[in-house]
């Protein structure tokens, strides 16, 4: 109970800042300084959110599915490539610059190409999500593998461990916190990536819906979509945190101990 109230106290500044921003937004609209067709007031957005809810959930389902598949493939790919790169040094030296270069390519620039190559279905969206989510996870894992204490590996070898056992008992567990930090970032990228790909063509999804309401100048509904994307991203990040806590119970013990010591 005490922990929960402490938690709320810590979040108070952020909540206050958010409330202030919404208040200024509302005041700006109410005063008439900005015409309502350009910037809908917060109240309009909430109304649009409620009245448009069935539409929003219908399109959100598609976007979430694309984000989910893309993220899943991104994780698998990142895991395989990072692990192989860590195992073979030459491969690491060969691939590291390429990995960085892929990150300098603006996603918005390759999205039309993907649509051209793969059509208007889910494939180009999933591909774009894979491209955007892969990197933070791969880099996280690589850093994690590198963070391993060399003395620990030597001791494992002295105890007769083979390289598979060293990976299982030392390298992989040490890389897990790094993996989850990367996954947290990727989870928020995943939804945005899917939405960007949807802008450029398709039949369903929040991005498709956004372009439609934009064309109709229904800015209140557009803001409702944006807020939904933010909420979904935040929920996904919270989900990653939850999975992390379940996957690494020892991590929680450590955090509790550190809190007590400090």
């Amino acid at each position, binding site marked *: 109970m005490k922990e929960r109230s402490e938690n709320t106290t810590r979040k108070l500044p952020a909540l206050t800042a958010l409330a202030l921003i919404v208040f200024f937004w509302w005041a700006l609209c109410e005063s008439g300084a900005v015409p309502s067709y350009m910037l809908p007031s917060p109240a309009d957005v909430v109304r649009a959110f409620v009245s448009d809810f069935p539409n929003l959930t219908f399109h959100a389902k598609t976007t979430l599915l694309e984000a989910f598949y893309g993220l899943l493939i991104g994780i698998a790919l990142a895991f395989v490539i990072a692990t192989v790169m860590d195992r073979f040094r030459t491969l690491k030296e060969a691939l590291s610059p390429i990995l960085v270069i892929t990150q300098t390519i603006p996603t918005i620039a390759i999205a039309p190409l993907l649509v051209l190559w793969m059509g208007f279905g889910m494939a180009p969206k999933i591909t774009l999500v894979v491209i955007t989510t892969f990197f933070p996870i791969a880099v996280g894992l690589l850093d994690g593998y590198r963070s391993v204490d060399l003395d620990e590996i030597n001791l494992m070898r*002295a105890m007769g461990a083979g390289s598979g056992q060293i990976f299982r008992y030392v390298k992989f567990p040490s890389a897990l916190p790094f993996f989850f930090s990367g996954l947290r970032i990727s989870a928020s990228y995943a939804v945005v990536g899917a939405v960007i790909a949807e802008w450029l063509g398709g039949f369903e999804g929040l991005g498709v819906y956004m372009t439609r309401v934009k064309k109709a100048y229904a800015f209140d509904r557009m803001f409702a979509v944006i807020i939904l994307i933010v909420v979904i991203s935040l929920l996904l990040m919270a989900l990653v945190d939850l999975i992390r806590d379940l996957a690494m119970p*020892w991590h929680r013990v450590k955090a509790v101990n550190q809190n007590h010591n400090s």
Partner: protein
Amino acid sequence: MEALRTEHITRSFSGKTIIRDISIRLMDHELVSLLGVSGAGKTTLFNVISGILPPDEGGVYLHGEDVTGRPGRISYMRQKDLLLEHLKMIDNVSLPLRLGGMKKKEAREKADPLFEAFGLQGTQMLYPAELSGGMRQRAALLRTYLGSSGVALLDEPFSALDMITKGQMHGWYLDIMEKIGLSTLFITHDVDEAVMLSDRIYIMTGSPGRIRHEIVIRQPRNERSEFDLTPEFLAYKKEILQILKGTDS
């Protein structure tokens, strides 16, 4: 009976000889120290004995069996406990058994009864982060014991502890060694610690690292509680310091 023996071990790195012609012996239930200044090649020798570093020349024998360059037979313990944070204590200490191919359940059953003797009763299902520094060291020793077929290599395991805790750990260690019948090769640069704990001391000087001298401590091991306050202790200490000084110049 002889527990561990090295014969004429030499090892170089990129043309530079780090240790030369090292022959030492450790009998059953004996505690032998390898005392030397930093840079005398103690850790290199240690890695050769544990099998993770093959020697250029010479061999390592465990109970008469040639284990040269074969890891997995002699485990060691260092200043850092190197417990794996993600494993519960029972799985941490039984890790050598698991690595040797034993099933998890069986390994746990074998490790469990030893927790009491090592003063770790009740910590089996805890994570290392939940234990104090002293407990973690004891757990690391238990793990070494389970991976060691009766011989433990200790590389300055107590050097990070404060004087009082160190003294307590010394007493505790001699006790537990007696209880479980462990033979110990102890690497240290601390003259007091070597005299306090050892049956014999090999004095090692650098470069290349060689054994210069062997000193036998005659005080029985079970009568060491206030040994460091006696004139005999000081005489041993003086003798060792003189050897270390003499070889310096």
